[in-house]
């Protein structure tokens, strides 16, 4: 009997939402860690009962939580995220040097094979790793000490490392993305990194196609095609087919090419989902309509998916970690909004159901496919 477990992080706690493989009826449990911001919750692919949650607060700092029973109970793991050596400075919004300061964990990426191995992407941007299920952490300093790092500047949400993608066919190859530095690639399990932004153009920089400085919002990979990555940039939806050696724009007929999320159908590597957002200042969906856009051709040609989604008076945002897909067939697609709604499609986006309508603002949605 298959099933799915959604892991939802919100501004005021985490929720665990479960369903059977039909994905029509849902059980909502939570809030866990009520009152705390939960930037991300993610399960180990190697042991689905092992979950990790990033719990943070402007008052009380960072806590990393761990569950060994699928989210029924939790324990505080380690929260000593200390930069290696003397951190130095990055660039502030006004162009001045600014000391590197740890603020929070944005994204958790468990190893594909070892439930005790876990990566954390943090603000100010750096990559940390734990080999003991989050009890102790060590920075992987090759990224933050890259020669371009003193020039990295924060986006509106801070200087955050928000995306970690591990190549399932070659775990030594990793991609990360930072707002606003861009994509970096490692071929030696995170020891060294190089920028991977060729083809990106950003008019917020004096040199539009600079090596670094792009506000990449999210990248996604289908596990069967690790050389193909899809990107939602601040503006522009992009694609690479050569492992991020070069990118090309695939925004095509989207109503706006700004957005945060992007994901790939688990059964169809050329079926891609985005949610266009009106920007710069608005940061809500356009025309009062919540529309997921799907391309079945790997980009350029997009169709609006609206069945079951509000098509009037809707002004929500969907943040970068708040969309995900399951591994069932047909593929389930899920996303959460700044208005506290979590939507699910059990048929690849053709129609949508509201799982829950009134959570706190949703920061992240992940799904585990349980078999």
């Amino acid at each position: 009997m298959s099933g799915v477990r959604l892991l939802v992080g919100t501004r005021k706690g985490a929720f665990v939402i479960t369903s059977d493989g039909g994905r029509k009826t849902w059980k909502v449990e939570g809030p866990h860690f009520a009152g705390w911001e939960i930037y991300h919750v993610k399960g180990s692919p190697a042991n689905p009962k092992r979950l990790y949650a990033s719990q943070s607060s402007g008052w009380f700092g960072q806590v990393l939580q761990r569950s060994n029973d699928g989210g029924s109970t939790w324990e505080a793991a380690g929260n000593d995220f200390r930069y290696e050596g003397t951190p130095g400075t990055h660039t502030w919004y006004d162009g001045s040097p600014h000391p590197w300061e740890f603020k929070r964990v944005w994204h958790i990426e468990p190893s594909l094979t070892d439930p005790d191995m876990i990566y954390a992407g943090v603000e100010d941007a750096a990559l940390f790793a734990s080999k003991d299920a989050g009890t102790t952490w060590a920075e992987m300093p090759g990224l933050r000490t890259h020669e371009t790092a003193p020039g990295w500047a924060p986006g509106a949400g801070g200087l955050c490392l928000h995306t970690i993608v591990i190549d399932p066919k070659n775990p030594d190859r990793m991609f990360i993305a930072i707002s606003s530095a861009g994509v970096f690639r490692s071929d030696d399990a995170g020891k060294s990194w190089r920028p991977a932004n060729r083809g990106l153009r950003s008019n917020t920089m004096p040199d539009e196609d600079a090596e670094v400085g792009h506000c990449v919002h999210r990248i996604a990979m289908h596990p069967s095609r690790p050389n193909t990555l899809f990107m939602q940039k601040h503006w522009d939806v992009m694609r690479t087919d050569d492992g991020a050696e070069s990118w090309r724009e695939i925004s095509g007929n989207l109503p706006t090419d700004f957005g945060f999320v992007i994901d790939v159908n688990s059964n169809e590597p050329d079926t891609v989902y985005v949610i266009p957002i009106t920007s710069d200042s608005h940061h809500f969906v356009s025309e009062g309509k919540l529309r997921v856009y799907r391309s079945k051709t790997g980009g350029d040609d997009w169709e609006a998916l609206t069945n079951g989604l509000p098509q009037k008076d809707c002004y929500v945002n969907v943040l970068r970690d708040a969309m995900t897909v399951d591994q069932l067939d047909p593929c389930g697609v899920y996303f959460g909004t700044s208005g506290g709604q979590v939507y699910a499609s059990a048929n690849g986006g053709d129609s949508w159901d509201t799982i829950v309508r009134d959570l706190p603002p949703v920061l992240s949605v992940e799904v585990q496919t349980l078999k």
Partner: protein
Amino acid sequence: MIQVVLPKNLQILAGVGRTVELQVSGPVTQRSVLDALEESYPALIGTMRDRNTKQRRPMIRFFACEEDLSHESLDAELPPEVASGKEPFLIIGAIAGG
């Protein structure tokens, strides 16, 4: 026993109620109280003060006996009413926002 009152978020994190009782050996100071609190409830390490420098987090305040002790030395003795357990040592999340 020293009485320490925790803010709600830290009560949840530590799995305790509003007030915890601590045995503190030696002078009763902010440092010794927080040391004892963190020893009893390791989940709280890093949430009230920097785990390395021991400096108070910016939006945490320490009150006792109707006084704000946030800016007192970490090693200054707390009021005798706190040391005797008659009055609690209050850890507060600073008021911010609406």
